[in-house]
């Protein structure tokens, strides 16, 4: 992109302005939380903690409710992601490559999930789950989180499949590969990275999903995010929350690194309608 500003290789003042503002507003708060995680004593009005240490890491990780929530979250998220991949990826392939009656209508129906105010929809679903006795159950939460991944796991893989150059596949057919072999050796590897990123983002998004888990899962099912809510509400020792925050954030960071390529591509934003 060409530079259109009048700047003659001078200071990029707007850039400096935005960078400073965003660093303070976005990185700042997280630094504070990070500092709290490694604090043993920090009393107002000290600008930095009086005493650093790892004591609270041991304490937090020693709590039974933390481990239960962590294990539960991992089980839940894995089940949801695997289920989602299993049912959505073949569907994505069908949407991307096959023609069948109602294809367009059904494809755009996946937008319906985003056409309603999200929590309002969750409440409507919860009302139904009440009657089905799914409230507070593992599978109730699985279902609700599964729906949350649908649009993501359909639209991005569809874009990935459509982006595979048909001529590569035709060249493979030309040298004698069967359709199944073409799919396995050409289509899947080509679309693979994008789909892998979608699956990863799905996993991370589900892990952090709060609203559905709280609404449907409470009180029996307490995922990590829900546990954090109770910690914040009950004003537990600050360090517990800070340690949990740092712990919770690690998978997010890993996802960030891997999914950068998908986020950068225009397909992602277009998937949200930009």
């Amino acid at each position, binding site marked *: *992109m060409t530079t259109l500003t009048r700047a003659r290789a001078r200071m990029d003042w707007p*850039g400096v302005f935005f960078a400073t503002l965003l660093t303070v507003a976005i990185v700042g708060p*997280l630094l504070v939380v990070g500092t709290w995680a490694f604090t043993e004593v920090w009393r107002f009005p000290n600008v930095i903690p009086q005493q650093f240490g790892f004591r609270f890491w041991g304490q937090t990780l020693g709590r039974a409710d933390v481990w239960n929530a962590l294990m539960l979250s991992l089980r839940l998220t894995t089940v949801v992601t695997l289920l989602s991949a299993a049912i959505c990826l073949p569907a994505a392939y069908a*949407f991307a490559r096959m023609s069948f009656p109602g294809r367009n209508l059904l494809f755009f129906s996946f937008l319906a999930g985003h056409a309603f105010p999200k929590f*309002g929809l969750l409440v409507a679903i919860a009302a139904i789950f009440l009657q089905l006795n799914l409230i507070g159950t593992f599978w109730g939460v699985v*279902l609700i989180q599964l729906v949350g991944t649908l649009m993501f796991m359909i639209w991005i893989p569809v874009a990935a499949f459509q982006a595979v150059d048909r001529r590569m596949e035709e060249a493979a057919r030309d040298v004698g590969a069967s359709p199944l072999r073409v799919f396995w050796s050409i289509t899947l590897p080509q679309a693979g990275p994008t789909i892998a990123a979608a699956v990863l983002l799905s996993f991370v998004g589900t892990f952090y999903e709060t609203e559905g888990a709280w*609404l449907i899962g409470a009180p029996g099912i307490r995922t990590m995010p829900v546990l954090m809510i109770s910690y914040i509400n009950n004003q537990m020792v600050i360090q517990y929350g800070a340690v949990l925050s740092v712990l919770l954030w690690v998978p997010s960071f890993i996802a960030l690194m891997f999914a950068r390529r998908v986020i950068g591509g225009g397909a992602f*934003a277009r998937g949200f309608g930009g």
Partner: protein
Amino acid sequence: MTEIAEGVVRPLIDNTAGRRPVGLLLVAIPVFLMIWLVIWPAINAIGRTVWRTGASGETSFDLSSYGFFFSDRYSLDNLAVTLWTTMVCAILLLVICLPIALYLRFSQGRLSAYVQALAIFPMFVPSIILAFAFIRVLGPNGMVDILLNAVDLPKIRTPYLTPWGPVIGLVWDNIPLTVLILLAGLGSVANQSVEAARDVGANALQVFWHIILPRISNSILVALSFSVLGIFSSFTLPYLLGPASPEMLGPFMQRTLREVQDPIGAMTQAVIAFGFCIAFGLFYVRSVARNQGK
């Protein structure tokens, strides 16, 4: 080298497989889930709150739950604070994200990449961590208070547990997607289009108003719709950062359903939320459908 005939467009969808229903089989399960857990609940919520089963078991057209909502002082206050929060967030998001998106579109280099990375960053911070960080920074005796105290300034009136708490949190949370959607829209404005405008004498502001804005008006509306749909009924941040009363519709609905144990009341509130957002929802669906169809 085989010659490709002029004008033969290779179809994206392989129609040679015919309109066999194999595809239908593959998409059946996700579609079923979508219908059962999105479309049906919405219809069901509307239905059960409009046709009520009386004590004697007969069903009749009965809008009393809506009547209650619109006559109840408490409910109306909650609705009002929800509308206010959504509007303020939408305006703040535009005011913050449009300049950032414009800057990112028309600059390059490492600083620009850094700004972009920062703008996208909140997408990878879960809402609860955000809430926790908010309280640690802007809450009573939080970081801001500490810093102000260190330079002998008075402590701020914390926005924690006021309607401004959720506003700050929701804006922070929605910056990435808004910037991304606006950037995608700005991507369709060709550099030469802007240069041509400057060539005929338009200054930066005129270029923005006459050339860029008309081209991204759709993106802006999509970004707005997406934010509104997310913010209007959001739960986590208003629940953790906002006041107990008046509360936003999200926490209100949750309380009505799980604590007051009034499913009809909760569904009524949900349907009212649908109603207020319907224009945005329809617009959003139409926009994305048109975009994908291109």
